[in-house]
């Protein structure tokens, strides 16, 4: 099993270091037709090391923006984000962050293995903290035998597996996923979700995933952040107590149903979650 955690000791940052990821009163405005429109009202987020978080909410609730602020792609208008006690910019420079986009974002002229190798080429092999080679990661995500294939020769699910391997190749301590399987059919999506849970069980990476699906959020996560739109804000934080490893049969349990109902209640503004959808 590849060792995927960073070898550097965690920096001592006092109380903040208890959390792997914390966001404090983070907000973001965007200029729309010359007006400053709040996309995301100040929100707080906490994820402990190894935890799996899910961000769920309607379109336009700012969940993708929040994920991009954590990855230092977008800057917050106000508030502060800490990743292992560092700023997102520092964490990004230290390659603590792996990002999987909704679109696989593979480079079409590169083979599967060269796409997985890309981060090593950018960063330089000296920065490698993982014993897992690109080849091992390709096997881990179930793409063995397709090393020399071009992205256009792969199905959508296989392309996203490749993108996942690429996100893991620098052994990030924080994995951010922006609706990674949203474009896939439901059967493939659950297969990919189970694979992701298996890979995470091996790597122990702290994970935050954006999703549109209530069932998916509850099935995958330890903690679900429920967002509302206009302006985007967190209306509920739901801790999921379903044991791991998660199996599809857990979706039939009362625990699962009750948690789904609570998340749905948050999304539709009905505390009891009894609203029909």
């Amino acid at each position: 099993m590849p060792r995927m955690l960073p070898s550097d000791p965690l920096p001592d940052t006092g109380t903040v270091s208890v959390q792997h990821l914390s966001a404090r009163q983070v907000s973001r405005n965007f200029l729309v037709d010359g007006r400053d429109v709040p996309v995301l009202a100040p929100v707080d987020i906490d994820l402990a090391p190894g935890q799996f978080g899910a961000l769920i909410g309607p379109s336009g609730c700012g969940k993708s923006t929040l994920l991009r602020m954590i990855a230092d792609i977008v800057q917050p208008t106000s508030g502060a984000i800490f990743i292992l006690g560092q700023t997102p910019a520092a964490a990004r420079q230290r390659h603590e962050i792996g990002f999987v986009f909704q679109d696989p974002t593979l480079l079409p002229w590169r083979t599967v293995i060269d796409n997985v190798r890309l981060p090593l080429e950018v960063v330089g092999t000296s920065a490698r903290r993982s014993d897992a080679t690109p080849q091992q990661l390709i096997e881990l995500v179930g793409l063995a035998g397709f090393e020399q294939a071009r992205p256009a020769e792969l199905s959508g699910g296989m392309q996203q597996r490749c993108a996942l391997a690429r996100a893991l190749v620098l052994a990030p301590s924080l994995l951010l996923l922006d609706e990674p399987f949203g474009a896939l059919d439901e059967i493939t999506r659950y297969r990919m979700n189970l694979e992701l849970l298996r890979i995470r069980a091996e790597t122990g990476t702290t994970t935050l995933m954006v999703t549109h699906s209530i069932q998916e959020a509850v099935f995958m996560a330890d903690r679900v952040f429920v967002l509302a739109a206009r302006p985007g804000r967190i209306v509920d934080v739901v801790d999921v107590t379903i044991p791991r490893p998660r199996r599809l049969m857990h979706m039939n349990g009362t625990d699962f149903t009750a948690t789904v109902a609570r998340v749905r209640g948050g999304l539709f503004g009905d505390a009891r979650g009894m609203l029909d959808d």
Partner: protein
Amino acid sequence: MTDANPPCRAILNAVLPPLAVILALIGGIELLGAAHLLSSSVAPPSRIAAEMGREPGLLWFHVEPTLLTAATGFVLSLLLSLIVAFACFVWPRFEAVALTMGAVMDSVPIIAIAPVLAIWLGLSLPMRLSLTVMICTFPILVSLVQGLRAVPATANEMFTVLAARPWQRFRLLAAPYALPYLFVGLKAAAPLAVLGALMAETTGVERGLGAFIVDAMFGVRIAQLWAGVVLACLMSVAGYALVALFERLAMGVDWKAA
């Protein structure tokens, strides 16, 4: 084109129809000439061919400098475009400046600026190269700048997450995405390079296809004039074909099935 077709069959299918049309045109003009239906200013193909075969040494004497000017000017334009496009890539504010200046340079009528350059730089190689670079840089630059902007937004975000340096972003991401755009510009520029070289040679130089054509015009040597025209056309077509070949090689390796 189906997979069952061997590639040479596909190439034949692409080449044969236009070739047949060209041959039919040549044959038609030849027949008109034989029937004395052509104006005296038009030489029938057989006379042009005879003129070309009469003194191949003299022909090469004039073709060589034109080829050299066009090819060197084309490569210089490509290098200049790469440098300017990289600058636009690193400093986006520079892009508007570069494209505006390029458009101004491109809008100067080449026939008007040629005498100015001839007086300034003399009937020298630098003068001929400057004119060629002036006429064929802009299409290359515009396509390259546009291509460098064709990178998908998420691919740019991925390189941001990787903390890639500008040079890495250019080399590993933007340049490959710009490649198909670049070849569009290069294909437009190849015939322009020949045009620039010919234009520069009409200013009074002794050697060059342009000088050869002007000389034939003043001597009213119709067959020689047409021989020059045909050679210039062949040069432009060859330049275009060479670029297309490079495109196939580059894209065939890197963009297979993309």
